[in-house]
């Protein structure tokens, strides 16, 4: 088929809808990680927390059938693991890269272990259904209805978290403290801001968001759990924080770009256009890098990122 036709068959509303779905887990995880990094903490263990969140959400729903319990479970385990990570990197001042990798391994193994012992083989659960908003969902024009008004609740939540977190960073005391602690902890400390408390808080928030990210997979988008369900999404999420230069909006753009290219390459082979699969699979990664090459250069890096704080003593 000729180029124009193929373009028509490739850039469809369903691709856009798929983009939003694919972006959802990345958004949750990356926005959560942004909280941590803004306050000076790098958490490489996101993927591990995601896996635990995914399993606990899945299991809660599998056992009780209650989606809310599923969410609660994911948030709880996320908070716990965030707390653990905070204790390790803030109180014990451990090298954050290593402890993160440790946390990842722990989550990877533990989620699978629990799954094997409590569930056995993959089972599917009744996850969050798409919400059809009468009227809106039926808008045919540009497939608006399908793209924006027929997703499940977690997709909306993920995108909601962007303006909310932006507001927190820029308009609230808490956000101010986070930024200060990430830029100049000594100054924040001298102004009676508890660096420790703030970093614990951001790490716990990050953990809960990562838990949600996992839940969005296991009880909203896939409705199933399997060993290593996230397949390394957590690491991409960390990368997206750098892509977004620690700004929620930027992080969202990164997540959307990455997911869009992915949705596109799937669509391309779905309509039977032949490209070596290796190259189409490669595309999102390549394009993310290229995009960053052309993006603006200035960035407000949290200067204290990964540097444990230690008062004068």
């Amino acid at each position, binding site marked *: 088929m000729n180029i124009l036709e193929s373009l028509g068959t490739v850039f*469809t509303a*369903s*691709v856009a*809808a*798929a983009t939003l*779905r*694919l972006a959802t*887990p990345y958004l949750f995880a990356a926005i959560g990680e942004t909280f941590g990094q803004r306050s000076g903490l790098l958490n490489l263990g996101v993927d591990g927390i995601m896996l635990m969140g995914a399993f606990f959400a899945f299991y809660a729903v599998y056992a009780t059938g209650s989606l809310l319990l599923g969410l609660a479970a994911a948030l709880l385990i996320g908070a716990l693991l965030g707390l653990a990570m905070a204790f390790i990197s803030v109180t014990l001042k451990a090298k954050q890269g290593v402890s993160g990798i440790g946390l990842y391994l722990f989550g990877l193994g533990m989620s*699978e272990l629990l*799954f*094997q012992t409590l569930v*056995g*083989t*993959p*089972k*599917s659960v009744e996850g969050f259904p798409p919400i059809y908003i009468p009227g809106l969902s039926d808008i045919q024009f540009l497939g608006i209805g399908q793209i924006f008004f027929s997703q499940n609740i977690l997709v909306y939540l993920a995108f909601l978290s962007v303006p909310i977190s932006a507001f927190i960073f820029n308009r609230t005391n808490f956000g101010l403290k986070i930024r200060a602690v990430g830029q100049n902890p000594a100054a924040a400390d001298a102004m009676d801001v508890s660096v420790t408390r703030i970093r614990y808080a951001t790490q716990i928030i990050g953990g809960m968001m990562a838990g949600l990210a996992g839940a969005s*997979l296991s009880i909203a*988008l*896939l*409705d*199933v759990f*399997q*060993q*290593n*369900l*996230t*397949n390394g*999404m957590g690491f991409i999420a960390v990368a997206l924080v750098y892509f977004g230069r620690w700004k929620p909006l930027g992080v969202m753009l990164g997540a959307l770009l990455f997911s869009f290219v*992915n*949705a596109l390459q*799937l*669509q391309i*082979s*779905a*309509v*039977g256009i032949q490209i070596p*699969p*290796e190259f189409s*699979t490669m595309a999102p990664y390549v394009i993310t890098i290229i995009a960053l090459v052309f993006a603006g250069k200035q960035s407000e890096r949290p200067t204290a990122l990964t540097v444990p704080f230690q008062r004068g003593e």
Partner: protein
Amino acid sequence: QDDVFRVAAVSPSATNDLAFSQSMFDALTMLDEEMGDAFEFTFQEGTFIVDDAAVALRDWASSGEYDLVIAHGSQYGSVVEELANEFPEVAFAWGTDVNTFGLPNVSAYTVAAEQGGYINGALAAILSETGNIGVIGPIEVGDAKLYVDGFVSGVGATDPDATVNVTYIQSFGDVPLATEAATAFVSNGADVLSGTAQMVVGPIGVALENDLLWFGTQSSQAELAAESGVAFQVYRWDVVLRDLIADIGEGTLGGESYVLTLENGGVEMEVSEFTGLDEETLATVEETIAALSEGIISGEIVPLPELEATPEATPAS
């Protein structure tokens, strides 16, 4: 040496993957139940890392405690070749491949996945109303490729106008990506889906959600696929294992290459007990399976002609 037959096996993914690793684990468990005290097996799962498998295999081989050491994954080939040379007294089996490296203590086993693929493809073509079918594969290799190719040719042979599109997502484990691949098919009008490798648990969910039909392979996914599931090609490694146990009992440590086929019962077509299909459609399904199996066994139907061209294994005894 007592009269207990001891087997040790290593496999890449987890034994609960509803796919490749599980097929071998189930076979061994089945034998264990049948033979009771006369049979024991150890299983090291989740060994994606070839070097770790190498350590395990060497450990077993050198221990001399095992009558049969199985490397369940084509990536383990080089390791088996080396160890078999080093431990000529130990019987090795590996798959899926056909290459015994010309060693008397190595058996290779593989599966004619194209056969079940062909039948699933034919059924898909018959049951599809939109005439649009989607297949999700991992990477273009081994039994996955055989299944997918067989499936495609099965569709073509049954309904030349039907379109069947294939997406290789380049991963055995990426459930989210596989899921979106399936969704992409659906949004382009596919009403029947199939796929191979452990990440298909995602696409199966998609089939369920949009009440489409699902065809599976490697292990039975009937329970997970519920009313969407139609037919599954199940690998019955126990067929090979039985032969091996017998041969080894007689002192032949290997040298042969086995292929699971419909004929030797190594490939089994299972119709889902949970399927949502109505009575007579189910009847047609069963008839088609019977007829096609017939044809394939008798050789009237050749699922993948190009396979013939390439030197292949001698069929199992």
